[in-house]
């Protein structure tokens, strides 16, 4: 009985050690990346900034799509009358551009969206 218990204990120990070593090997391997690196072989700090902005823009874009789908669903005709949304305050072109800069810096929009929107604002002047 004691022998069986000892064997089981040894197996558990071996298993735990194996897992620890395996985890360590994976985490220390040169190719290990906690986040997809957008800049292999390029700038470290700059690469993180770029990955942060690009990654943030992609995630925000996905969220926006979900939000747009929800909004489209929620705006479907209802039997109950809905209150009309308050009209947005009118912004100057400069205010719009400033806001656009903030959105881009925060990674809320992609550089492509930024460029398109900026052109639209400038064209409307």
């Amino acid at each position, binding site marked *: 009985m004691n022998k069986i218990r000892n064997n089981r204990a040894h197996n558990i120990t071996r298993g735990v050690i194996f897992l*620890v070593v395996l985890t360590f090997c994976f985490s220390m391997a040169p190719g290990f990346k906690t986040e997809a690196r957008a800049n292999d072989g390029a*700038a470290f700090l700059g690469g993180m900034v770029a990955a942060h902005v690009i*990654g943030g823009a992609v995630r925000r874009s996905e969220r926006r799509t979900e939000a747009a789908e929800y909004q489209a669903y929620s705006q479907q005709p209802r039997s109950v009358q809905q209150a009309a949304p308050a009209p947005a305050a009118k912004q100057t072109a400069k205010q719009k551009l400033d806001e656009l800069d903030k959105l881009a810096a925060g*990674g809320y929009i992609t550089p492509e969206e930024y460029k398109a929107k900026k052109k639209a604002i400038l064209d409307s002047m």
Partner: protein
Amino acid sequence: MIRTFNCVAIFMVLGLFLAPWASAGDLTPEYLIGRWVIDDQNCSSPDSEYVEFRENATFESTRTGKAEIVGFWEFNEDILALHMVTSLAFFDDIHQAMADFQGQYHYFPGKLIIFNTDQNSFEAFGVIGDVIERTTAVRCQ
């Protein structure tokens, strides 16, 4: 007896692997001051990426001889906080679309978790938002 042996074995294995991380406790601002080359690059190469931490709590990151990120640094319980100002346009080689931000400068807060410190080198995990990168820095004389 067996259980004690198991515990000792597990702690020995964990201790062996986590020992280098413990050296992060030796970190001081004085240690960091100086010029470091990133990702095991060559200190004599102008193409390498360098980060210089200055005594007046400012730092500068340069690549191909050009300052790309400037800002302030501070230690907070062995975590190095970076307050960075840069233009995304400097990194159009990483992502072409970044060129659209020409002439615009933005602030980014970042953190470096430093470990495996040696007299002339350290390893670090850099964190900006949920982006995490690992690097090695070597001191340039």
